[in-house]
């Protein structure tokens, strides 16, 4: 069961393995001994810092002087910070465009591969490779070459007599190159879809076929409904991760978020506020704002899932 499946069962109140603890002597000592490193990590590196950044959100703190309580000053500053709203718009565009495109692409290719083909594992590996490399600085640097004014893409376009712009240095296209990079890493959701497709019992397809359902009908009445939990899983996780993208925008724009802030992701702006401006209070407030946005999107996704996700249990 996936992490999200686990969450779903927990939310429904029938926790995985909801057995009576007290009936068979619980072994608290051993439990906490084995859990000790994780528990220390949870307190020191997760819960502690979460509370600290919540506190810092209401302060002015530059690392040198002690934090100064300023109440809601950071919030009101955020409301009037046009660069922040622009960065949020850039991030939202990235999330809303790149995630669905990547998933549709991944599902399409997975369905092509699931036709019991020879060489499936070869194609699966080839398509998966970019997912492994896509987050690296090296690939982002390669992207600057591929989409540069004298790059690979324009070289290709020139065969057809088209003179392409400098994609990376044009404010209208720079974000698009990062979206293409994200779509290029369609392999990992594709692998998950493929595993899901292979779990659909063949008899469902056979039964539908016997009832005279054509290919398209079978997709919408058998494949798609049975795959919705996996699509949902991918959608939720990819959205959460896409909101946090940083490296690609940083490298492709040379750390500036340019041209004219067109690749200034929210996370990039946050990084600059924290580590260039040393405005830790403001950056913390931004981080909590991001958390709230992501939580909102995730909750909305879960709510929406009642209308389209089909659970076979």
């Amino acid at each position, binding site marked *: 069961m996936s992490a999200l499946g686990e969450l779903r069962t927990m939310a429904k109140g029938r926790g995985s393995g909801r057995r009576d*603890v007290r009936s068979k002597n619980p*072994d608290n000592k051993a439990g906490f001994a084995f859990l000790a490193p994780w528990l220390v990590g949870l307190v020191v590196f997760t819960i502690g810092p979460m509370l600290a950044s919540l506190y810092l959100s209401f302060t002015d703190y530059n690392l040198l002087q002690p934090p100064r309580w300023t109440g809601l000053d950071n919030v009101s500053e955020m409301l009037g910070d046009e660069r922040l709203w622009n960065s949020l718009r850039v991030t939202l565009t990235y999330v809303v465009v790149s995630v669905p495109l990547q998933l549709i692409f991944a599902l399409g290719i997975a369905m092509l591969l699931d036709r019991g083909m020879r060489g499936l594992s070869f194609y699966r590996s080839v398509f998966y*490779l970019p997912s492994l490399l896509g987050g690296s600085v090296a690939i982002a640097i390669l992207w600057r070459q591929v989409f540069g004014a004298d790059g690979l893409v324009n070289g290709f376009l020139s065969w057809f007599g088209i003179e392409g712009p400098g994609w990376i240095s044009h404010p209208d296209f720079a974000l698009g190159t990062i979206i293409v990079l994200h779509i290029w890493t369609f392999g990992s959701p594709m692998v998950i879809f493929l595993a899901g497709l292979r779990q659909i019992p063949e008899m469902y397809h056979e039964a539908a076929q016997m009832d005279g359902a054509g290919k398209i009908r079978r997709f919408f009445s058998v494949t798609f409904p049975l795959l919705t939990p996996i699509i949902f899983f991918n959608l939720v996780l990819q959205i959460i991760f896409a909101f946090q993208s940083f490296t690609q925008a940083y490298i492709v724009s040379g750390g500036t978020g340019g041209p004219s802030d067109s690749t200034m992701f929210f996370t990039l702006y946050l990084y600059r506020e924290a580590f260039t401006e040393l405005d830790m209070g403001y950056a913390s407030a931004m981080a909590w704002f991001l958390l709230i946005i992501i939580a909102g999107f995730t909750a909305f996704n879960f709510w929406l899932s009642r209308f389209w996700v089909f659970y076979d249990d």
Partner: protein
Amino acid sequence: MTTAGSQITSPAQLEVPLVAPPAGGRRRSLKLTPGRIAVYAALTVLAIIVLYPMLWLFLSTFKPSSEFGQNQGLLPESPTIDNYLKVIEGIGGIPLWRFFSNSLLLAVAAVVGTLFSSSLAAYAFARIRFKGAGIFFAAMIGTLLLPFHVIILPQYIMFQRLDLVDTFWPLIIPKFLATEAFFVFLMVQFIRNIPRDMDEAARIDGAGHLRIFMSIILPLIKPALITSAIFTFIWTWNDFLGPLIYLTSPENYPLPIALRLYNDQTSTSDYGATIAISFVALLPVLLFFLVFQRFLVDGVATQGLKG
């Protein structure tokens, strides 16, 4: 609610073996029909498009810098290994091997730390009944989804107060405390699918949890350990934000940060060296991929790793 002592709780778990069934498990005819040929052709074209940038990257490492911008083709017109010679020399007086060994040290430490701490936590969640197990398990799943920006600034402030900025410790210590919940979860799933007969027999023979963990569970979850090790290595190797924040002096830089140096300082002049060091940085990941692709693909297929 507790998760300790749970075994298989949903049919989905039974159906998801960690190692996916071999390709072509579904019985359909493999005859070449025109439709099938079209599909093969489409997939092959796509594979070429997907791989082309990487092939171009590799072959471009042999192009002299002056050829960039003029020759967008695959093959260099006047092949040279000058780029590699320049890259090996390093940048700013720091040789390449230094960046490389920094990266290697960070990645190996992360693998050791993650395997150690995640397997212990996973055993506790999957096999021991104790108070609060359910809440802790929920917290673990929660940290999977938590955006790291809300914790990274106070972490930085903490390490700065401890005077550990510009050392490797901020990047290594968290790995020994199982902060990558993905791997805890992966191992929990794996342990839950191991029948309990063996531990129960060992327990009757008087073995404690440590004994059962060391001599029964660990050997049985080897595939999950290998998958976790490979992913930890690759993610740490590619990690950018962590080293960017914590490591300030160039002699401590791992490869991705050194790469940025090339990207920032020489982006207008020395394309050749920049491309060559990019390729060098990808090389270990490519090797891992070639050797362990089955583990990687199966790991993603069953656990939905973000990889």
